[in-house]
Structures are given as C-alpha cells and as structure tokens.
C-alpha cells in the first residue's frame, strides 16, 4: 500500500487485523465467561435459598410441635390433677349417698357412680396418651398398645396390632413424633373413613423401621391426596420429614387408606 511516498506493508495491516480480532475475541470470551460465572452463582444462590427455606420450615414445624406438646402436656396434667380428682370426689360422694338412700334410688346412684368411675378411667387413659413423659417412659409399642386397647374398648372399630422383628429404641423424640403420626392417622380413620377394621404394623428391621396403618374404610381420590392443605395428611408427611423419615399415603375410593412411615433407625435425625 502506498500513501504520500511512505509504504505500509500488507503484513502490518494483517498484524493489525489479527490484533483487532484477538482483542474482540478476548472481549467476547470475557463476557461469555462472566455470563457462565454469573449463572453458576445464581444456581448456587438458588440452592442456598432453598436450603434456608427448608431449614426455616423445619424450625417452624419444630416450634409448632413443641408448642403442641406443651399444650398437650398441660391438658394431660389438668385432666389428671384436676378433672379426675374432682370426679373421684364425686364418685366417693355418690358411694356415701348410695348407702343412705332407699333401694329404688340406690341402684340409680350406683349406676351413676359406675359411669363416673368409667369416665375417670377413660380420662386417665386419655391423659396418658397426651403426656410426653408417659409416652417416653412407656416406649412406642406399649403406648400404641394402650391406645389400641382404649379404642377397641369403645367398640368404634376393630384394631389389630402386629409387630415384625424385635423392637429397638428409636429415641424419645422420634418415638413421640411417630406416636403423634399414629394418633393423627387413627383420628382420620375414626372421623372420616367409616372403617370397620384397622391394621397396624410395626416393622423393626436392622436397616429400616416401618409404621403402617391400613384401614378398610371409604378411602378418597387422588384429588383428595393432592389437596392436602389444611388436612392431617400434610401434617403426617411433615412430621415424618422432621425425624428424617418419609410418609407415603395411598388411597382410592372404596379401597381404604394406607399410611406408611419409613425411617432409617441408624440416621439419628432429631428435630
């Protein structure tokens, strides 16, 4: 190339074009690298946020359970220390009255006294099933057995309890949560299922613990399963997750409902 008598070699122009190309290429690569870095950062942030939200939910659930346990304990002690005491006094008074009245009225007083005695027994059982101390001192199986006896006595439903494998302790908190899951499921069956039979299965295997409740009630559709908000079913799942387990609820109309909680006994996840 020629300009005013001074030449610029084509090589120089080539070099300039190469340098320009390299610079622009570097710029584009830098921006692309930045975009990749930024996307990775976004993903990491999203993961962190999800983890935080999960922890928050866990904490919230834990607090809810603690408050619930405190309330249940309070109700339990009130029933035990106050209501049953008053009823015992009523029972004694009725006993005294019975001895001083004529035969015709005495049978009615004795009948009433027996009813009060039955109410006291029922209330004591209820108090025990609500009390955290009682559940932790008796253990999961014994507490469930007592509850089964109590409900069977009422004649509302026929409950059978089976155990597979020798039992081992799962820890106070986990056993309490499992018992609350059992209570929730039992309550659902009694209230909504119109079931005649409920089968409870406790499987104590070396690597897995399973609690299964299987009823022959009316069941519910998949929509009912999906729309769990506000129902006890979501509670069951949340409680299971809180102790590191998983709850599976399976049901269809006319085919009853099955609740299965699976837990790794070696994984010591406490809330």
């Amino acid at each position, binding site marked *: *190339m020629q300009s005013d008598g001074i030449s*610029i070699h084509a090589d120089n122009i080539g070099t300039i074009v190469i340098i320009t190309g390299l610079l*622009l290429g570097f*710029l584009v690569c830098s921006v692309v690298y*930045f975009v990749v870095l*930024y996307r990775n950062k*976004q993903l990491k942030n999203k993961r962190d946020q999800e983890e935080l939200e999960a922890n928050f939910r866990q904490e919230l659930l834990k607090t809810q359970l603690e408050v619930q346990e405190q309330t249940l304990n309070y109700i339990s002690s009130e029933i035990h220390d106050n209501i049953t005491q008053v009823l015992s006094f009523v029972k004694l008074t009725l006993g005294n009255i019975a001895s001083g009245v004529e035969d015709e009225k005495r049978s009615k007083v004795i009948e009433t006294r027996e009813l009060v005695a039955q109410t006291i027994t029922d209330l004591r059982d209820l108090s025990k099933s609500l009390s955290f101390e009682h559940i932790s001192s008796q253990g999961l199986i014994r507490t469930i057995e007592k509850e089964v006896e109590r409900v069977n006595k009422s004649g509302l439903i026929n409950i059978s309890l089976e155990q597979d494998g020798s039992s081992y302790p799962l820890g106070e908190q986990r056993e309490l949560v499992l018992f609350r899951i059992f209570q929730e499921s039992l309550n659902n069956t009694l209230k909504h299922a119109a079931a005649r039979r409920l089968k409870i299965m406790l499987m104590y295997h070396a690597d897995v613990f399973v609690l299964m409740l299987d009823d022959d009630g009316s069941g519910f559709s998949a929509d009912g399963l999906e729309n769990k908000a506000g129902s006890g079913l979501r509670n069951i799942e949340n409680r299971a997750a809180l102790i590191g387990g998983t709850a599976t609820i399976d049901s269809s109309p006319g085919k009853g409902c099955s609740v299965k909680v699976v837990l790794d006994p070696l994984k010591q996840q406490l809330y």
Partner: protein
Amino acid sequence: MTIQEAIDFVLLVIVLIIGIVCYPKLTKAFRVLTFTIPVTLLFDSISKLSVRLYKTNALVLHLECLALYILYAMAYYHLFRRKRIKKFIFTSTIAIVVFAVINAIFIQPLNKIFPSYLYIVTNTLLIIFSVLLFRQMLLYPTSISITSQGIFWFNTSILFFSTTMFLNLALTNYWAEHKYWDNMIYDFWYASYYILNILTGVALICNRKETGRK
C-alpha cells in the same frame, strides 16, 4: 451525509425514542443513561457544522468527551452499592474536569488538537468501572436471567466501546504516523458506535421490563 453517518443518526434517534418511551419506568442510572443519547446527537450535529464552518471539530470533541464521561460516571455512581466506589467515581469526575481544562489549555489546545489524552483517561476509568460493576454483579447476583438485566447490557456496551476506543485511537495514530488513510478505520469507528447504541437501547428496554416486574 455518508451512509455510516445516516445509520448512526437513525440508530441514535431510535434509541432516543426508546429512552423517552421508557423514561418514566427507568431507574435513576438508566434515566441518566438516556440523557447520553440526546447529548451525543447534539454534539454530533454541532461537530458536523463545525467541520463545515471551521474545518475542525476539536473543540466539540473536547466538550463531548467530557460531557459523556460525566453522564456515564453518574450512571455508574447510581449502580454501585459500595460507598468507597461511589466516592472514587465522584472524585475521579472532579479530577477529569480539572484535567480536561488543563489539557484543553496547555496540552491539546481546545480549538486545534483532537483530545486523545482525555479519551484515553476517561475510557480507562470507564473500563475500571465496568470491571468493578461486573464484580459487584457476581457478588450480588439476582434471580433474574442475566440477559434480561439492563445493567448487564449497559456494562457490556461500555466495556466493549471503551476497549475498542483504544484500538480505534491506536489505528488512527498508526495510519496518521505513516501518512496513510483508509476508510476501514471509519467503518471500525462507526461499528463501535452502532454496537454501543444498540446495546444502550437493549439496556433501556431491559431496565424498563425489570422495573415493570417489581
């Protein structure tokens, strides 16, 4: 008017319209950025007039370079979170104004010489701001896709334009040194401006959408 000038003018007008339409929903930084468009249009027009009347546009370029730097620095000032960086931008802007005056009087006379020193200093600072802003974006990522963020397009446009500005100046000087001129350099200058204007328009649209989402 050459084809390159016409394309540049049309692009500037389009981006100006985008800026005016989006203006009420733009954030502070992008409102400032919108002002760079009419300022560029105004100085470009005066520059052409100046060349026709006085055979030089050095004076206009001195003023344009300073005005645009102040506007870009203001936009960056609103985009940064750290007070130290904001302080640095503020101080550097004052320093640039002082330097522009000294340069125009003593080093590269206002009405005679192209203000290459001013271009080099201001573009170096803009590259630094751009890199710092990219760093800030990495430190505080948002959930919005990066390609939908006005801040990304604005910063990319400044990084691209300021970096290529060095290359443009170097090529122009190289050719001038060898007393050779090729229209290729014009094409390169204009290509840089086109990209700057297009990316500015994209940045304004994205910022409007972002604020619309909030």
